């Protein structure tokens, strides 16, 4: 009984995922399966077009965190596009919004994907080396 319509396409080394409906307890497992199947080691970014997303429950937030955490070691970016006010509030209240970059539209998001990370400064190098032997 899915409450979410998902449309996925590849754009170069990125994935664009268009969501419509609710990312909730019913649809989150399906979302998780789809994302798990599609993310490959060479993936550089996942763009979630969320203009049609009406609601995200805690089950949905859990999958958004899992996705961002999965992309992080690949050095890939997680980008949200067109987030509605309602969903923005959920992301803000939970703090999960900070896991995602934002873009005005899919074109801008894909351009963001191409941008290389600036080389880390002193503190960046120090932080990334922190905890390593």
């Amino acid at each position, binding site marked *: 009984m899915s409450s979410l319509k998902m449309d996925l396409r590849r754009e170069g080394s990125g994935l664009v995922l268009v969501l419509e409906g609710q990312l909730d307890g019913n649809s989150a497992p399906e979302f998780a399966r789809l994302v798990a199947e599609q993310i490959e080691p060479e993936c550089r970014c996942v763009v979630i077009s969320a203009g049609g997303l009406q609601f995200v429950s805690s089950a949905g937030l859990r999958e958004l965190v899992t996705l961002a955490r999965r992309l992080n070691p690949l050095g890939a970016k997680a980008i949200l596009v067109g987030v509605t006010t309602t969903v923005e509030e959920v992301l803000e209240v939970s*703090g999960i919004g900070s896991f995602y970059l934002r873009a005005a539209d899919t074109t801008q998001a894909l351009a963001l994907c191409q941008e290389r990370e600036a080389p880390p400064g002193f503190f960046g190098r120090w932080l990334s080396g922190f905890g390593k032997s």
Partner: protein
Amino acid sequence: MTVPLEYQTGFAAASLVDPVAAERYVRHSQVGDPEADALIGLLQTRYPDMAAEWIQRGIEGGAAALPEAPGAVREFFSEIERVPDWFDPHLASSGCRAFHRHSEMFLGAFVGAVLIEGFSTLISKSFCITGRLVDQGVRRLKQNNRHLVEIFIPGGLDRRSDGWKLSVRIRLIHAQVRYLLRQSPEWDEAAWGVPLGAAHIAYATAAFSALLIKRAEMLGVRLSAEERASFLMIWRYSGHLMGVVPELLFTNEQEALHLHRIGTICEPPPGVESLILANGLINSAPIVAGITETKARRELVKRIYQVSRALIGDEMADRLNYPPSRTFGVLALFRWRNWIDRLLQDQFPAIAGLRRVSQFEQMLKVTHYGEGGLGYRMPAHVHAERDQTL
């Protein structure tokens, strides 16, 4: 009014404090949930094969999703969609924000105090007989947490959202368990009243709202008047969806605390079932949090006992057979830590953001998420071990 045997002493004592509220509470210990009970009775006696499917379709899609169901079934699902005029979704935002700002403390107060205090009533008999909290304690605690988290997600109590669906699901599971227990020879209605009666559901709602704020405040949580009112309204609406009768559904914080106080006096002292549930809950909390290493688990259990004792008081802790521990300074330490935390977050918004994320991720870890989405299977037997995991 006939007073169930186990309530007679408490009822006499509560009547000295507030005879009207005491009479109302004990009268509702003998009432279930007339609408939900009628629905479950109808489904179980005439449409047992369709019960689970209709419940799922009704909760997910309302009466429109049940074209072939009898009128009574459709009416139930149509009626529960009626939003009471006192619920304003626009006012829910500040309560949600307050909950997530302090979710670690709210969850701590919920598990370490409010659930324990709830289990000290006769409701523990229902849970103990069915075994649903004893045999599947970790899973049940995570399901409780899930409900709490979902109703405090902004928009979580909208008709199509998980908080709304889970609240109604709880109502129907209670009705189903009530249906099974009332047919069981193990249940003594003359002594204990109706299983999972209206009084207990109202008592739990009052505890999960106003008492939860009170206990969280003992840990140093501070809420504005607007946040308190919003927090209470969210629980009031969830209580309404869970079938709390209007006569017992609080309209403000004082009413909720008064209902809790009168209910506590009416209830008999904690019995062996309360001891089993309370101690089982504390001992399973580290497992819920993912701590399985023996030494670390024991240390955490010891700590939870200490904090719980400080929150519920020595008298209740001793009645529940808690191990002795010193509570001097325990709550003060929490308050001090939260005061420092608040100060840092006010000065450095980035720290507030990081705290929110880490608290939310922690909450996700102690919450139940089924692989197959929201489940709607109803218990088919009184005893949990005869049902597959629900």
